[in-house]
């Protein structure tokens, strides 16, 4: 099922479906004569991108940087919080309460507050990205840290390993698969957060490009930015999958790959 031949075959099929959809879109737009302001043809979007590659690259880079910064911070904070939650009843109650309250707020609605606090630079974008990405990392990491085979727990106790040794030798490595599951959700949330941050204020990034193009009814440019966002989202997710394959080749989900 997973031999290289089928893999090649699968990606060929994916590519063909993709090309067919693009063709249908192109032909549909041309035949129906729908106004480009409503729906531009793929060829027009491609031309838009080709005409200003430097511009789009710069704006994309800005969004990618705030996404990655937010994701990395969320990862760091999330793992530390998860360790604290697993380590102490008292901290567990405190952190969960705060996290659940934060998470039940529509976090997007907090974005304007961050602009007031942090200005129009990259900081509020990163902050919104962190806020959106944090929850899934904490939840999944806590689950991973808590799931230890009872026999392994017995082994740890018989060896009289303390809390730190158990954490480093058993719990953290054992939590890696769950952590990756959380990261895969978190990376898309971080991208959403970065865009929301740009929507609320600032002068760079693909979110800003969309906002300005919308004001000018430049639908083609909106589409160009959307295409780039799609590519960025898919690429980040794919990078995580590669990291997963390299870091946890031992996990059941990775073995037959």
């Amino acid at each position: 099922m997973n031999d290289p031949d089928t893999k090649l075959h699968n990606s060929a099929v994916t590519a063909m479906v993709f090309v067919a959809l693009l063709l249908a879109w192109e032909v549909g737009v041309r035949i129906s004569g729908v106004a480009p302001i409503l729906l531009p043809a793929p060829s027009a979007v491609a031309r838009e991108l080709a005409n200003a590659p430097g511009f789009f690259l710069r704006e994309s880079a800005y969004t990618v940087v705030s996404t990655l910064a937010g994701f990395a911070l969320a990862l760091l904070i999330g793992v530390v919080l998860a360790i604290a939650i697993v380590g102490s009843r008292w901290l567990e109650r405190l952190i969960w309460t705060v996290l659940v309250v934060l998470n039940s707020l529509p976090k997007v609605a907090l974005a304007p507050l961050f602009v007031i606090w942090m200005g129009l630079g990259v900081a509020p974008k990163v902050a919104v990205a962190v806020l959106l990405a944090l929850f899934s990392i904490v939840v999944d990491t806590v689950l991973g840290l808590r799931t230890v085979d009872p026999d392994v727990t017995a082994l740890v106790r018989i060896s009289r390993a303390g809390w730190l040794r158990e954490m480093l030798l058993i719990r953290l490595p054992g939590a890696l698969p769950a952590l990756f599951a959380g990261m895969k959700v978190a990376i898309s949330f971080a991208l959403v957060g970065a865009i929301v941050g740009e929507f609320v204020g600032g002068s760079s990034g693909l979110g800003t490009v969309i906002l300005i193009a919308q004001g000018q009814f430049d639908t083609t440019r909106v589409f160009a930015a959307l295409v780039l966002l799609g590519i960025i989202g898919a690429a980040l997710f794919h990078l995580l999958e590669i990291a997963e394959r390299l870091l946890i080749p031992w996990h059941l989900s990775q073995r037959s790959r």
Partner: protein
Amino acid sequence: MIRVSVPCISIAGGEKLYPSSRGAIMALRGIDLDVADGEFVSLLGPSGCGKSTLLRCIAGLEQLSAGTASIHGQPILSPPDGIAMVFQRDALLDWRSIIGNVVIAAQLRGHRAALYRDRGMALLERFGLAGFADRYPWELSGGMRQRVAICRALLMEPTILLMDEPFGALDAMTRDDLNVELIRMWQASRRTVVFVTHSIAEAVFLSDRIAVLSRGPGRIEELMKVDLPRPRDLGVRETPAFAAHVAHLRAVFTRLGLMTT
């Protein structure tokens, strides 16, 4: 009779209650068992009779509700020094290589893995796994995995080895192999072993003495000495003496209503 030495493991009047929503479950009652240094004792009994519970009390993972458990005269209040345990499911760590799974016994005790690598490799070699040191658990068969678990248990040279149905999940042939390897290991080192099993033949083949437990609550119904010469090999199972031991234990089980004939 005058006691000249303190037994290695001693349990007197051992009782274990597990609290539960529908009142307490009595898992063990009136357990009296002494195991001498270097002795191989098997706990034989049906499922649910408290064999694992007894083993966990010796390991210091559980406390008896009444009675005393001690090792060399010291009451067992927490996991004592110098014990190791082998479980039915091998409890290997998926993310560690085979040698990594062996040396973790040292790392969990705060030693550096590198210092124990040679000893780990020697153990793997002894159990026919030298070529697999850098493989991962999922690449090994059930029997090989259980050998690794035994190597892990032996790494820190425990004085007491507790084994909870270590071969229960293996097929008969692999089980025979491992019985032979275990008995070879034991004959060379003479550690104190408490071995839990469902299998009469396995218990007779391996043990110096066999404690037969019955259910509800678990108590020791019979303590049988195994009078078979050592060193033993698989050939001993064909002897009349072996058959007599097995027949005797069968009769005990039938008398207790634990076996339908």
